């Protein structure tokens, strides 16, 4: 199982195949280098995001090196990051 971390400042990576709870996910950079491994704490569908770090309510979610939203719930490392725990900072 691989997950793509696009930018060094990203707090999330995109899983490149369906991930099940407990799967070990290899996080890679956009030039294909292995960065580290994390354990998924829940199922994550292909192309969805996995959290690379523990994120508290109100903290920013970063992808592409850019802020894409903020946490509405506490998000653990390895958790699925999506509309159930993140909101837009632009439009709500």
């Amino acid at each position, binding site marked *: 199982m*691989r997950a*793509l971390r*696009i930018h060094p400042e990203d707090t999330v990576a*995109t899983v*490149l195949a369906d991930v099940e709870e407990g799967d070990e996910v290899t996080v890679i950079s*956009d030039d*294909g280098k292995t960065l580290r491994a994390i354990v998924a704490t829940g199922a994550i*569908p*292909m*192309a*969805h*995001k996995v959290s690379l770090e523990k994120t508290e309510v109100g903290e920013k*979610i970063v*992808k*592409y090196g*850019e*802020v*894409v*939203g903020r946490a509405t719930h506490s998000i653990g490392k390895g958790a699925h*990051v*999506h*509309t159930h725990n*993140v*909101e*837009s*900072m*632009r*439009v*709500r």
Partner: protein
Amino acid sequence: MKTGETTFAGYHRSDASVGVRNQVVIMPTVYCANETARLIANRVDGVVTLSHPFGCDEPGPEPRYQGQVINNLVGIAENPNVAGVLVLGLGCEVLKARELTDRLAAAPKPVVSLVIQETGGTVKTVRKGAEIVREMVEETKGFERDEVELSHLTLALDCGGSDATSGIAANPAVGAAVDMLIDAGGTAIFTEPGEMIGTEHILTRRAVNPEVRDRINRMVSNEETRWKALDIEPSWMSPGNVEGGLTTIEEKSLGAIQKGGSTPICGVLENSMRVLERPRRPGLYLQDGSGADVHGVTHMVAAGAQVVIFTTGKGSTVGYATAPVIKVTGNPRTFDHMEDDMDVNAGAIITGQRSITQVGEEIFRMIIRVASGEETKSESLGYRDFEIYGPNPLVNKTLGIKEGL
């Protein structure tokens, strides 16, 4: 015809523009003529109808609430891919056939008008209309392609049915191809300012001058104001977008702008009730206009684009009436499921088999082949989509948004 890395085989027109197809079109001025147009097109191979729902639902003749619709119709007819135009009116509508033929008087192609009420009804109009377009199609059979520099090629960039693979595979690969095209002297346009919301700080950094920077900010801010006022925020994200892993509009926008590559932004093309601007010199352009998907393709083809690149995650069948559409998916499952509709598999980036640059080079080579005559999947399947966007002028007026940029 030899085509290298910087040339393609196109049709030179007498005004120095270059077509990649010889499409004969029937253009109704009003919805009342749509069915007659279809009956004519049914009789002649190689003709498409450009049906739309406008032409008479405003008090005329001034002010022209439908100015943007008319500008887009004129632009589509002027596009060098179009080799002949039959303008079809009913007779009592606001948008008269004469108004379109007058604006197309200088176009280097046959433009003929026919008015159903004057001609004497369906049977006579269909017979006469079929004769006219058949002759136009016959004339195109003598046209030959010549080797043409890529500086004569303009690409339209669009996306639909996006998911989270779009922003990491299909759009970056298209962006790589766009960088190659622009390095070779070509032009590319992308629109949908709604999908630029949250990325203004990135796009404005790439503006060639302060005027372009200000136009980018104005265009995106106007679009955001309209959408917020209309209270239609939920539609910024389709259910398929969310199911596909896109969480917020910022994330969707950041993925969408990847298709524009990394070159400087030379300009923002106004597309309003008063004017439809075209690129004045090669390079990368943004274009104003609320139209999404096929509506957006119409905006860009009306501004002169001859080839369309359409990226999709969830899958799309789209083609276009007057320009070939190259469809690229970044989702490997979509490619496997819908291979008959997909021209390029950028899903190989997701599965780790190919790099963004490799797929970008494949797209660049395909652009040259398609511009030189190779059929895309949607063309061979017979897709000839056409839509036109008609903005409601009351929205800008009520919100105090100045028309244009």
